[in-house]
């Protein structure tokens, strides 16, 4: 965790709704607020359909926000108008995608894929400089120079993800959104990519938004973690605190659900097993959205939506159990 807590991004009440038809609206992200500090890795976790990918894409302005704002170094991302400024902004934010098979153009050579951003932003003067820069990037992510003239299909999943990372780094971004960058890879390859991302962060002072559903990897790579459920943020904490002392009942269930690679522990561990499925985000439950599956749900949970409050320093939670007014409920 970087010692200075300078905000790189400030996300305020961000909403992204998709209109499905005349009557129904899918509220994929429905009012989330958090900051991302300079040089940190902010992990975003949650189950499929919770809105974590949509949140990442809306922050990058790949989607226009329905409401709320994203301030990037003091500037509202969604208010940038002129083409020149948008280009400048695009350079500072890059993305690494989940599927290394679908996210690389099969008809382009690796060096053209990596240099596409360099060309668009006119970052080099001569073809020689371009080749040098590409080679440098290939080496940076652990590939060889001669890989540059090959095509994506000649590479394994892990190598392709390295190409995707080189492409993202090509324009010297400050901030990278990594959307499930390791989910499609084998365990031993996952560790390689995670180590690479960590090393690059250290050497280049990058800030990451790391989106994933695998909590153990997220805990390993992140300084702070935000947990989402049905379009809402339910808890934010430093990654250690989140794992050792989860506050929100959903976070507790999520952590308890991860099977630990330790048979003796698994045999004795008490597990919280949630009942049922995640409700539809088109028609979410009233009050707290988690109440239909919450083992600690109280009367008030169906009536009043819990407030997003700072429980203690750097610790945010949205749950009535931590609200003075409704506290009489069991805090077990």
């Amino acid at each position, binding site marked *: 965790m970087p010692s200075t807590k300078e905000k790189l991004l400030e996300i305020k009440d961000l909403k992204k709704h998709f209109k499905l038809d005349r009557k129904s609206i899918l509220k994929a992200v429905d009012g989330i607020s958090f900051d991302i500090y300079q040089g940190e890795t902010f992990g975003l976790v949650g189950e*499929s359909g919770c809105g974590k990918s949509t949140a990442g894409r809306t922050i990058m302005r790949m989607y226009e926000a329905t409401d709320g704002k994203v301030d990037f170094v003091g500037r509202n991302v969604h208010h940038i108008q002129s083409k020149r400024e948008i280009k400048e902004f695009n350079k500072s934010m890059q993305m690494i995608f989940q599927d290394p098979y679908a996210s690389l153009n099969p008809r382009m050579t690796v060096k053209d894929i990596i240099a596409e951003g360099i060309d668009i932003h006119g970052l080099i003067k001569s073809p020689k400089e371009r080749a040098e820069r590409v080679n440098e990037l290939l080496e940076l992510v652990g590939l060889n120079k001669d890989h540059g003239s090959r095509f994506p299909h000649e590479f394994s999943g892990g190598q392709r993800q390295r190409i995707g990372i080189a492409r993202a780094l090509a324009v010297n971004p400050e901030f990278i959104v990594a959307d499930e960058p390791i989910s499609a890879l084998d365990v*031993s390859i996952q560790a390689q990519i995670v180590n690479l991302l*960590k090393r690059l962060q250290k050497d280049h002072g990058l800030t990451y938004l790391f989106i994933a559903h695998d909590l*153990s990897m997220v805990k390993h790579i992140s300084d702070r973690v935000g947990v989402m459920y049905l379009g809402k943020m339910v808890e934010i904490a430093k990654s250690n605190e989140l794992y050792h002392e989860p506050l929100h009942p959903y976070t507790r*269930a999520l952590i308890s659900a991860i099977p*630990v690679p330790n048979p003796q522990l698994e045999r004795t561990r008490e597990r919280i097993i*949630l009942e049922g499925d995640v409700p539809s985000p088109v028609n979410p439950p009233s009050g707290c959205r988690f109440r239909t599956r919450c083992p600690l749900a109280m009367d008030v949970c169906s009536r009043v939506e819990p407030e997003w409050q700072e429980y203690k320093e750097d610790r945010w939670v949205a749950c009535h159990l931590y609200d003075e007014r409704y506290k009489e409920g069991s805090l077990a």
Partner: protein
Amino acid sequence: MNKILEVKDLSVSFDTYGAEVKAVRGVSFDLEEKETLAIVGESGSGKSVTAQSIMRLIQMPPGKFVNGSILFNGEDLTEKPEKQMENIRGKEIGMIFQDPMTSLNPTMTIGKQIAEGLIKHRNMSKKEAHLKGIELLKLVGIPTPEVRINQYPHEYSGGMRQRAMIAIALACNPKILIADEPTTALDVTIQAQILDLMRGLQEETGTAIILITHDLGIVANMASRVAVMYGGKIVETGTVDEIFYHPKHPYTWGLLGSMPKLDIEEEELQVIPGSPPDLADPPKGCPFVTRCPYAMSACTKQMPAYTNISDTQKTACWLLDDRAPEVQIPESAIVGGSEINA
């Protein structure tokens, strides 16, 4: 314990354009009654091909049995005519797949898909099969089964589809259930539900389970015995405690080391460098030789034989040869506290 399945020296290859891919190369293991055997390994290690061979789901050609046998009830499944296999599939051996959306028939109601096996194998009437279907859906925890049984797969959520798959697989009380990455497509909270369900049903019915997975957490949670596969071979096998607390093979060490640990802080994850071997042209010796930090010249020349570590644990590694140097298990691969390792 009674052996109900014996796989002996099984080799399965696929003829592809230009090369023969040797997906499974001499795999042997037993399955005992009521136990859960986990087969772990990376993609391309041959774990799914092994499972599909038992069910005879491999399309031949391009696939072919090169060698070995699969003994079930004293009969070799690799030699059974297709007609006879139909009496084993679903009745004696059930299977659940990774992706419940593509493995259920989208044009048939869930009820019909459950009834299929019951009518064929247990000579039930349509009505009986329908009632039994409702009972099964209830057993696997689907609410309002009387309504749900008449619905189609797209009306089910991912977790419910996997429950329905389990209901279909268990409809005829099979002796063996093969689960190929049954929870990989599901979210963790739903995964916990499905694993819990499988464990409960196993206790009730006594079915033996072959669980194929790459997730060591699931192995620790479910398995009684483990077989670690790499490059088409089983490199180590043992009870779940032996594999986690006394692993002997460097690949097992690497797998255990590359898992992030929730309870402690690590700066860097242990990495297995490189990538798995090309099975169209597998290494002559040990398949792990190109990625093994302890590789010796013997490793490149010949596949090591199994060394019996205990009655239940076997490891194929040259490091266990008398002439090999002594190597300590790396710290990153040590699981749990010292009291467990003692």
